[in-house]
């Protein structure tokens, strides 16, 4: 989840299909993709629900949270507003009767690399789990690997391979 234009679909495209399109096309509704990741001692099948950014303001997303093992919250590191939106979303999720793992990704790190443009300081205040670039592929696989490890260690019904 995350505000419009933060790169949610691009992250999924990079993770699942190893591709990136510079052309921005808004997501409508929901797109679902699957990805299998091999961990040290198990294989995790991720079913990733890519929910359109505009749903952030409609509370439509709530029904998708039921049954979700984790919510990946994505923000654009160049747009502080998108980070504030994530903070507010996390607070809303905490008020629901659900308890998924919240995993925070700061995307578009390629735009600030080697530049002193990124107000990195909010990283310190919050627990941003990974900074990624869907464009370059930087840390995308690692982000979901890391999430998978958290999920695997939290799953009582884990089927070990």
């Amino acid at each position, binding site marked *: 989840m995350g505000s419009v234009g933060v790169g949610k679909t691009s992250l999924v495209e990079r993770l699942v299909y190893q591709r990136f399109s510079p052309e921005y096309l808004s997501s409508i509704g929901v797109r679902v993709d699957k990805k299998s990741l091999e961990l040290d001692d198990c294989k995790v099948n991720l079913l990733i629900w890519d929910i359109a950014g505009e749903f952030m303001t409609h509370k439509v997303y709530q029904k998708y949270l039921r049954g979700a093992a984790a919510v990946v919250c994505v923000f654009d590191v160049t747009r502080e507003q998108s980070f504030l939106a994530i903070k507010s979303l996390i607070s809303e999720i905490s008020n629901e009767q659900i308890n998924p793992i919240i995993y925070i990704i700061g995307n578009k790190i390629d735009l600030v690399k080697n530049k*002193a443009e990124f107000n990195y300081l909010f990283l310190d205040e919050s627990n941003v789990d990974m900074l990624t670039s869907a464009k370059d592929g930087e840390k995308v696989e690692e982000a979901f690997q890391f999430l998978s490890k958290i999920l695997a260690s939290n799953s009582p019904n884990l089927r070990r391979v």
Partner: protein
Amino acid sequence: MKKNYEFLINQDGKILKTDAPFFDASINENVAFYFPMFIDFNVTLDIENFEMDIYEASINGEKYFFKLKIHSINRNAKNVYDFVLEAEDLTEEYIDKQKHQTAYNKISIKNEYLRETNVKLDSQIDYLRTFAFVLSHDFREPLAVIKSFHDLVDNALSEKRYDDITELNQLAKKQIDLLDQMVSSLLKLQQVTSEILSNSDSQLNLSHLLDKIAKDIYESEKLQLHNQVADDLILNIDETHFYVVFQNIISNAIKYRKGDLVDVEIVCKQKDHFIEIVCKDNGVGITDEDKRKAFQFGHKGSMHNQDEIASYGIGLFTVKNIIELYKGQIGIEGNKDEGTIVTIRLPNNLIVDQMASEIKENQQFMDAKSFQNILFVDDSETTNFINKSIFESLSLHCQFYSVKNGAEAMKYLLGAKPYNDQNLYPIPDLIFLDSSMPVMDGVSFAEAFSKIRDRFNINIKIAMLSSMPMQKLKMDTKDFGIDHYIQKPLSKEKLKQFLQFN
């Protein structure tokens, strides 16, 4: 055209039957082939009540939008299917909607940026208001005192009390010094708030800078600096900026010391995303109110210990501006009588990778060899000689020529006498131009040269040197194609920076 499809699915998720045209019955697929959310058909979802708003699917390379609904049905003994998935095809409608949504979202993102810019502008306006208020107050006070002293001097003169005059003059001088220091502080602040990080390649050894400040600083004998910063830490920061930063922090420690001496420990640690510089002293500490307001323009610390040292409420505000210029953050902690801790965080991309930097530097010097003929335009022969020596100290083997003013330089370039022999006076590919010279100064030369620049079939670069404030000079010459500005005097470091940019 039919827009609703049905998929009859068994308990294992296998599609038994469908009227969807994209379905290849021979594949005998699992429903998850088309709809990945059913990958773990029996356990993933509350399947009997599954309903979605809009689902975007890519099927055989085509994009579809469906509204999906699934419900269980009674087991059919013959066909053995358990679920019906209804897929309402809304592709045509939603392809258009997606285009509109994309345009709308792009505008929303732009609006977000604009809103952020507005907030910044509002804060600038607030700052300017406070600035004007504090200035009018802080300048008026010493001026009023000076005026009073002046009146008293008049009285003393008329009453021939000459001893009083000396004392009054000394008191007035203190106020004048105060004003002078305020103006200096404001000038530094003005430089910082108006300056763009024009020279992000400047490299600074932080540890050396701290040692230098400890020697230079006013009342340095009252300072015991424990510099724990690694000696090999080089940062991509400007020396002047960070001199101001640490000079302010250290002089505050001296100002707010407990006894005759203050211990200041400066430690620098590299964290995951930033460099943290912690400056800790054992002074009088800081009140909660001062912590909140420490970085506000015009705020003066309440625990001021030394009456003879003035506080203008500008120093830490300037420091904060500098740190923010580098996208960093500064904070202040401490309690009364327990010393003060100032913490600075800077993006860790400011750390210079020494090896990469040296390779780059060497490459740039190699490239710099393309400068073959350099013309110095300066009325001081000594300056021309020193500048030439600095070039030579970097092993740059160029030919050097010099003229005394802009008018001579024009003659040189146009091949007028005595510069009419091109073998003796070749067209330079670099001009080092002083801004202030008799006859024709650097600005006038730059303007005149900009009109004839096209005549030359080589690209002549101009570096302008000046001891005047650069900002005004840049404004005055903005249309004349100056390639680089260098604050006088030229140094090896400044020349290296220039070569990196050119």
